[in-house]
């Protein structure tokens, strides 16, 4: 077996095991929270009688382990089950939310990743001169401001005062791609501002590290232009750490944007998950948790594999 294939299959198997562990952990934690779905649904209006009826209907009277393994059995057969609270099919509702989340993450990534890397290269090219300082200052400022504040400021000035873009990033199936993009413009800008600095700084540091090498000096002596040296010789050798940080940020764009979702009323996974945690809707929490974990594990695996492929020494082990 090719060593790369072997590595990938090993990682996949490990990933599945991790997922199983994550699901058990999530189940245990949700169970440990005070109250259950019946209580959360009825809230202040809970009478002991209504509570008992609802528990019976939701099947919460059965032991926790039974419920977990039933859920696991369903998952193996590709059945995520029904939400406890509103009886909707989980696969269907999660599917819609997930595609929204991926849509937003995709466009944020399309803009932020190339921009961050380009700014990183630019910063190296003009190291310690004003463009470098300006880029660092701006990106570090935007990463330091909480994302909800950037969101509110943009909503107020851009959407309410200037009337450009919409303050609500509501998207639905009946919209055209153009309408959808217009609608998510503000959250994409906010997310870009939030993730830019991390990736840009990492690119800059990784490339600067390589710039000390002897082969860069050789390239310089060959008379190559500064930018070409960075682009052709330094960047390929600095790919591993850059990919790592890019993947971390992509994972954040998918998994960690609930605050931005709330500010822009975006129908993504984050708010959906929070709602169901509050209502102790265990099957939905499990489904979301496993999807998030899978995305995290998957992206990290991609980062590792790319790092190995980018390094000839790791690609052809003795």
């Amino acid at each position, binding site marked *: 077996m090719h060593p790369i294939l072997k590595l990938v299959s090993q990682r996949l198997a490990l990933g599945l095991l991790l997922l199983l562990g994550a699901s058990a952990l999530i189940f245990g934690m949700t169970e440990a929270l005070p*109250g259950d779905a019946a209580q*959360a649904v009825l809230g*202040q209006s809970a009478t002991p009688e209504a509570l008992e009826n609802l528990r019976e209907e939701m099947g919460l009277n059965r032991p926790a382990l039974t419920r977990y393994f039933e859920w696991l059995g369903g998952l193996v057969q590709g059945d995520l089950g029904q939400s406890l609270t509103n009886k909707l099919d989980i696969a269907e509702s999660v599917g819609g939310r997930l595609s929204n989340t991926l849509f937003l993450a995709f466009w944020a990534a399309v803009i932020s990743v190339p921009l961050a890397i380009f700014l990183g290269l630019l910063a190296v090219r003009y190291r310690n001169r004003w463009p470098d300082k300006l880029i660092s200052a701006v990106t570090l400022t935007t990463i330091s401001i909480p994302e909800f504040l950037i969101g509110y400021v943009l*909503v107020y000035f851009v959407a*309410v005062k200037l009337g450009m873009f919409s303050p609500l990033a509501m998207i639905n199936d009946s919209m055209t791609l153009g309408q959808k993009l217009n609608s998510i413009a503000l959250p994409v800008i906010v997310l870009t501002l939030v993730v830019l600095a991390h990736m840009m700084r990492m690119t800059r540091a990784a490339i600067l590290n390589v710039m000390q090498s002897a082969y860069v000096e050789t390239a310089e002596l060959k008379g190559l232009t500064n930018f070409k040296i960075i682009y052709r010789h330094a960047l390929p050798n600095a790919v591993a750490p850059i990919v790592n940080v890019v993947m971390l940020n992509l994972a954040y764009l998918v998994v960690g944007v609930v605050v931005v979702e709330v500010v822009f009323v975006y129908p993504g996974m984050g*708010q*959906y998950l929070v709602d169901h945690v509050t209502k102790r809707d265990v099957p939905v929490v499990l489904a979301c948790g496993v999807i998030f974990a899978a995305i995290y594990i998957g992206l990290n695996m991609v980062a590792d594999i790319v790092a190995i492929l980018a390094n000839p020494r790791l690609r052809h082990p003795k």
Partner: protein
Amino acid sequence: MNEQITHMTKEVTAGKLTRREFMGKAAALGVSAAMASTLFADAARAAGPKKGGDLKFGLQGGESTNSLDPATYASSVPFQNGKQFGDQLVEVAPDGSIEPRLAESVEGSADAKVWTFKLRQGVEFHNGKTMTSEDVLKTMERHSNEDSKSGALGIMKGIESMKADGDNFQVTLTEPNADLPYLMADYHLIVQPDGGMDNPGAGIGTGPYQLEVDEPGVRHVFKKFANHWNPDFGNFDSVEVVVINDATARTAALQSGQVHAINRVEPKVADLLGRAPNLTVHSTAGRGHYVFIMHCDTAPFDQNELRLALKHAINRQELVDKVLRGYGTIGNDMPINAAYPLFDGSIPQREFSLEKAAEHYKKSGHDGSPIILRVADGAFPGAVDAAALFQQTAAQAGIPLEIKREPNDGYWSEVWNVQPFCASYWGGRPVQDQMYATAYLSTADWNDTRFKVPAFDEMLFQARAELDNDKRKDIYSQMGHMVRDEGGLICPMFNDFVEGISNQLAGWESDPTQEMMNGNVSRKMWFA
């Protein structure tokens, strides 16, 4: 100039001038935008309702866990959804009287024990079926039978039997109750085909709008139902309920014209928001109240002197000014205010008095150990601030209050109705009987102050059976006195419903029953 304005408003009334044209011309005459807006709204109201347009709500109080099953409604968005696709038998009118809906009329027997609802004929469900008395009976059974998990279960308890009889639906009670029609106006009791026994969450009813898109926690879209029994209800082509739980996002959406009506405007921004030219902030006095509740049967609150000490130690006006920013009225330690029918306005207002507080505290003989008040932000907006203000004034009277912050999550199951002293809120009920029966009757499940006084219970039942309003008012007054002087309720304030409505809409009327004109915005308002 006045003549020209008068002429223009006449043209608006005749439907010859649009809002945009009117505002333009008014501006040319030097009329301020806010003034012109008001003039236009008045003129448009005189013109009467117009049909058409797509209404958008931006509402707090929706989650992705919401269901369309009326039995599960407990927050604003489901409440509003129910009002779009459903009708109850009767509705509480803005003036507090009973208005017919699916029942044409309602009649009670002389002893107020048997109530007969004469049902409207030819009412069509959205699935094409015609409503029968069987559907009504099944609906009521679903909310009251043993398997019920309905939010209306509590109010259905006094029913002995129900029957469907041709065009009539009849309810027989175990005890007389003169307020039964008000109970039937509860927003959970939406008539569904076959009572919703087979698929309660289908969102099929007899309402003026029928369900088109149901994305819980995101949006709910309804389109006009052509065969609604009352052509006067529902002036819009479609209604969209957009869930916007974030207060800032909600106001931004209204300001930028993305939605036409928002609920729960934060009192601290209400004044500022009201200055925007394209919208109006409506403040409606309601029956909802923010409270601190003590268990009358748990030490140290089993001492009435201590309860009285705490009641005197709270500065009500300060709370209304600082927590509600003036969007509310002070409370009198009873759950009833002037918004209720048969309210006795002569009950003296309890005043803030450090001397009396100190005096009662001394009499109670409390050992001086800190009294723990549990509070969370979710108890009511500003609850933590209110508790801090309470702590300050109590300390001045020598009463040591200790505030314990609790998480929002799980507050209603772990703290409220469990711990002896905590912050809470009540949404209010249409009539006094229902409010007292829900939370002050000895046997009530939600008796969150553990107020158990047999004489009080007796008066409650006596008032129920009494059809003479003067005598009832007298009994309710005595009950009010009792709760105020002996109960475990510290009620510093009644909160207003504060809502933002676009000036494109006309036909607003204030309704104290529930927020957003008791859910009737889409039925009664129209695009001017």
